[in-house]
């Protein structure tokens, strides 16, 4: 099952690359460098989804005390941090030629960076506690607090300052993007989502085996 997921993710990533480089048009002002968007945007979407999964799994753990829910939260947080890091890295690579700087304290950059450190803290907390049950309980509380904090961080940082282009897809009204670009983005999103599922499935399996070996 996991293996099928892995192959599906690999195929989808290939299709995504094809869409990004062959099908989607070359952007007029930025040139080829703009194609990094097909990695940048899907990875941040997947990262946000991953943290929503952490939130839901944390609540589920606190309500039911099912170890499976805890493993899901743990795995999803790890993969979410990975994709957040990927977002920041690709954003930097994209920002250097277009904005002229690797990093700027713009609103959206800042809020993604805050997200990154918040969930790195989550993983640190897990690492610092030896008893599995207590680690799960504390991490679940932190998972809930962190997720409820995301909208607060988002709005506070937005009011603070913004330079980033406004969202092109997730906004009211008709999309400003040509449909072919939207299609390429969605294919890549699907590929990244499959990759996320594959990683999480692998990690959950590993965590379960670790738990059994430790018990």
């Amino acid at each position: 099952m996991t293996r099928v997921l892995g192959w599906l993710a690999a195929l989808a990533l290939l299709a995504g690359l094809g869409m990004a480089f062959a099908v989607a048009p070359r952007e007029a002002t930025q040139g080829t460098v703009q194609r990094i968007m097909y990695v940048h945007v899907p990875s941040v979407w997947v990262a946000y989804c991953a943290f929503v999964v952490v939130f839901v799994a944390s609540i589920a753990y606190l309500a039911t005390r099912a170890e499976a829910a805890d493993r899901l939260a743990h795995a999803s947080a790890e993969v979410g941090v990975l994709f957040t890091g990927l977002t920041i890295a690709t954003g930097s690579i994209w920002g250097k030629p277009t904005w002229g700087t690797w990093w700027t304290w713009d609103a959206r950059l800042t809020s993604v960076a805050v997200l990154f450190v918040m969930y790195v803290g989550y993983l640190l907390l897990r690492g610092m506690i030896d008893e599995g049950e207590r680690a799960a309980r504390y991490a679940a509380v932190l998972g809930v607090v962190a997720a409820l904090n995301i909208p607060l961080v988002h709005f506070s940082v937005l009011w603070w300052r913004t330079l980033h282009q406004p969202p092109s897809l997730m906004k009211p009204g008709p999309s400003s993007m040509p449909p072919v670009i939207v299609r390429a983005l969605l294919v890549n999103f699907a590929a990244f989502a499959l990759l996320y599922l594959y990683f999480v499935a692998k990690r959950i399996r590993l965590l379960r085996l670790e738990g059994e070996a430790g018990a």
Partner: protein
Amino acid sequence: MIFARRAWSVVWKDLLVERRSKETLNALAFFSLLLLFVFQFALGPDRERLAAALPGLLWLGFVLAGLLGLGRTFVLERENDCWEGLILAPGDKSAIYVGKLAANVTLMLVVEGLILLLFAVFFNVDLAPALTGLALVMILGTVGLAAVGTLFAAMTAQVRARELLFPVLLLPVQVPVLLGEPLGAVGHWLGLLAAADVIYIVTGLLTFDFLLES
């Protein structure tokens, strides 16, 4: 009503111990004074540069003092082995959270008032015209910081490397408050701070129970 009385007994206990021992308060007062030295040395004698940086430094002082003070929320219980005693108190555990939070807010406001006074004297700032606005932002900001701080202090009390982990967990979560405090005088920031306070307190009330099981 019983809930309020339970919470009050925690406040009363903490503040009484603090009043008699003055452990945290004395150390924090001295720490605040030392902060002024550090700020002054870091920025040099240039009066204008100092004046431009002062609002940020003021909040930095509050946050640093807050990190130290809030991290000690459950030190008394841990060092004196009273943790079980606290947990065994009958009834709703979130009353303990409310009590600890109220005691923390009181202590922090005293320390912040002191920092404010020190700033006014040593950096020669006239605070009188801004005082009401400042007080409002200080209260809202402190409640937000303490609401998460109290929760995380309970979380890190029994964990390895707690002195390190506490600020590492607290600072990123506090970004809305950190951004809101220096800008607090502007209308919608007050709303944001208030919203953050409500969300943090409600989350704390709902999740505190889970931290006390053992």
